Structure formats: C-alpha cells, structure tokens
C-alpha cells in the first residue's frame, strides 16, 4: 500500500505518527490550559 506517494509503511507510518503526536500535544494543551496553577495561587 502506498500513502502520500510513499511505498514503505515504516516511512509513511512515521509521517502519520508525527501528525498524531502533534494533535495529542495540542489536545493536551487545550484540555489542561487552566489546570495546574495551584502552586502559583499558594505563592
């Protein structure tokens, strides 16, 4: 199977994983945008 003109699943797999990884970072950042400020409030 060829994806985006790339024949080797070890390469197009990495291509897709990179996009998934950045989506995970963005979603994590949005969900936790206002969480974790306890230390600052205590300070």
């Amino acid at each position, binding site marked *: 199977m060829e994806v985006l*003109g*790339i024949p080797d699943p070890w390469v197009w797999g*990495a291509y897709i994983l990179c996009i998934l990884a950045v989506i*995970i970072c963005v979603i*994590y950042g949005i969900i936790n945008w206002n969480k974790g400020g306890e230390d600052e409030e205590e300070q």
Partner: protein
Amino acid sequence: MDILILSIVILLYFLIIGYVGYVAWKGTKTSEDYMVAGRKTHPYIMALSYGATFISTAAIVGFGGIAGQFGMGILWLVFLNIIVGIFIAFVLFGKRTRKMGHNMGSLTFPEFLGRRFNSKFIQYFAGLIIFFAMPLYASVVLIGAARFIETTINIDFNLALLIMAIIVAGYVVLGGIKGVMYTDALQGSIMFLGMLFLLVTTYYLLGGVTNANQSLTNLAPLVPAQVSAVGGTGWTSFPVLGSPWWWTLVSTIILGVGIGVLAQPQLAVRFMTVKSNRELNRAVLVGGLFIFIMTGTAYIVGSLSNVYFFQQTGQIAVQVVEGNIDRIIPLFINQAMQEWFTYIFMLTLLSAAMSTLSSQFHVQGTSIGRDVYETILSKAGDRSVLITRIGILFSVTIALGLGYLLPGSIIALGTSLFFGICAAAFLSVFVCGLFWKRTTRAGAIAGMFAGTITSLFWLFFIYKKTAASLGISQALTGQDILLTSMPWPVVDPIVVAVPLAFVVTIVVSLFSKPPEPQYLDKCFEGV
C-alpha cells in the same frame, strides 16, 4: 544576493535582539534572576525558549543534510522529538523537575542532581562533564550557521565562525538566562514562520505532497552503489533491517537525539524557570507545534532536495555537494528559493544558532561558576556570577577553536554524540532521582560513572566513526577498533551505555543504605 539589503536586514535584526536582551538585562538583579529567571517565566516564552534551544542549526542544516542522505526514515526522529522531547519531557519530567527543583532551591541541572542525592560530588562531577563535553555541541552549531553565511554571502568560513561567536557571547555574558530566554522566544517566532514557509514552498515547487514524494520514490534506482552495499534502499523506504545503514540511522541519528533529549542540562533547567504546572501544560501545545514544524520541515525538505537537484542537474544531493552533507540545505535554499526568502532564511538560521548557542554557553558558564567553583570552595554571591561569565568566555573560545578544527559532515554526528554522552551520564540518575525514592547516593554515583565510562570507552575503542578518526585505539592497541564483528562497530554508544547505567544505578541502590526519609520528604514535598 544584494549585500546592502542583507546588511540592513541583519543590522535591524541585531538591533531588535539587542533591545530585547537589554530589557532582560535591566530585569536581572539577583543570581536567581541570572540562573532561573526568578522562576516567573511566561509559558509562551518558556515553550519557545525550550523549542528554540532544542532546535539549532544542527537540526536544520546538520540533520536536514542527513535527511538528504538517509531519506524520510528520519521522520521517526520527528515523532520522538514531539512525543519524548515535548510531551514526556514536559508532562512527566518537567512537572517533577520544577517542583523538586523549587523544594531543593536548585538553580542548575547538576545542582538538581547533587541536592536530590545530597552529594556535592555529583554536582561538580556533572558540572565538569557538561563543561568539557558541551563545546563539541556548541562548535557544530556554530559551524551550521557559518556554513550558511559562507554559502550565502561568499565570505570566508573562518570569519563567519568568528562573527557568530562574538555576537552570541556578548548578550549571554550580560543578560544571563533572562536575556537568553527573551531573545530565544523572539528568535523561535522567526524560526517558526521561516520554516513553515520553506515547507509549503518546497512542496509547491515540486508539484504538491503526493507528487513530490512520488518523485522521490522514483529516484530509488539512483542510490549510490556504496550506500546500497550497506543497506540503503531509497529515500522513501527504510534501510535493510540490521544493516550498517539501518544501525546508523536508528541508533545514532534517531535514538541518540530522540532519547538523549531527556537528559539535556540546557533543556532541563527550563523547567525550573516557571512558577506552576499550568505553564508546563500550556507549553506542551506551543512546543509540540513548534517542534513539528521545525524538525518536520528540515527533514522533509532535506529528503526532497534530491528531487530538486536531480531535476536541475541530473545528480542527487550528496553528489551535488561533493560529499559534504552539511552543505545540502544551504545550497538548496540558495538555488531553489527566491532571493528575498534567502534573507528571511538567513535570519531563521541565525536565530536557530544564536538561541541554542546562548543556552549552551550559559549552561557551561553556570556549570563552572555555580556547580564547580561554588561547590568545591563553598563560596557564593557576586564572585560566582563573575566566574560564570569568565566560564562563558572560555567556552566560546573552546567552541570556536573546535569549529576551526572539525572536519566536514560533522554537524549531525557531533550533535548525536553530545546527546548520547549526556544520556549515558545523566539519564539513569535523572529518571531514578525523579521517580524512584529508593535510589541511593552510591547508586547515583555508580550509575553516572558506569554510563560515562562505557560511553567514552565505546566512542574511543568500538564505534568505528569516532574510534577510527580519533586514533586512540590505534595508538594504544594497534587496531582501529577492538570489536570488528557486525553490528558492533556501527552500534551507537547510547544503545549500550544507557541500559548499563540504569542496571548499575538500580543494583547498587538496592545493595546500599536507603536515603533518610526526612530528606526525601523535603525533596518530594507536593510532588
């Protein structure tokens, strides 16, 4: 290339950088300001500073050149850079490092390790490793910037190297980490826009994503015979499993930097500059996007440069640059992009080099000022900031000297080696220190020694790329390398040294006296 326009653009850039550095310098009053920015850094500045420090000319020019040689298999490194270098680093390591660093009042990475295990020896041993190993990394980043300046405006490589070193040293010595982080954030923004434009333009130039990738796939028959012989199969397919080409790509290029990033002193100290976990949560979003665009662009464009060069000259990238892969990206930008973009990319690369160099010099300075001078002589105060500044100037001089001496195609290899040495020396101690309370001082010291000595032994006597060129093995044993059976000569030290360091740290800890509970409670309070 119009030298007058370029001079005006660069002068304007330095004026803005100078102003930002000056604002930071005005806000630097105490040694805590100088070393961890008063622990009150904005998440955008922290994330971009981390990203811009992580990504240097080594990533863009050096690893972009590696992509021109190895192809898109290097995208696994982009994946690791995002998942390990950002997500795991910020969410798992960053939060604990920030809180524990605050509990222990540590200002540098060696101090963090030293105080976690209540050992001054660990602090100055780590400080010395950083002080002596970091110049290798700093010099290849300098080379990356100088190569682009040399190619773009046709000035002597050695002169370009000197100019870069003087400019960066100036604002690091004056502004401390505030100067470093504020200018990093500005430079990171320039880098992001420059690389995003480069990615879109390259794909547009080559007929879109699928067309460009397909053209690269079609070049597979042009893989040089000597590359095919060691396992290379093309630029859109992975090398033959277990071949020397595969081991070099996986163990040195992908794992060396992909895992080594977790134990980078100049990155770990960033976690100690924010006031709460909220900043780290927000930084995951900014950092993930930044690394994706920076590394993804460098590696994809590096690979696709083969298509462009083949269409223009009938040769693949490595042949066009006559074997010096550090010249692939500079040459591609100068030939394929419009002139105005060359100016912008010049600033992108200057930003990438300066933001990384500034942190490298800052970390080297603090390692000698704070971690060695203050720790051994038990003296603190203004004098240690002075020693730090002298240490920075010394580091710049060493990096500059190495920059003149090192051979071509060295940027990516030098970076991987430094990341590997840091991983071997610090990763096991750092991970166990953060996540395993039973780790003892003896275990930490044994793990650091085991990792460092194994890594250096492997570099000097086993790993062919370094052992053969350093000549230490040849001088002592009469052989280039001690292990000749495959795959050992092409296995990176990180693959052997890091697991061994973990085993030694854990085993010695289990057989030595547990740390005092009261001390651990203080370190882990609120974690």
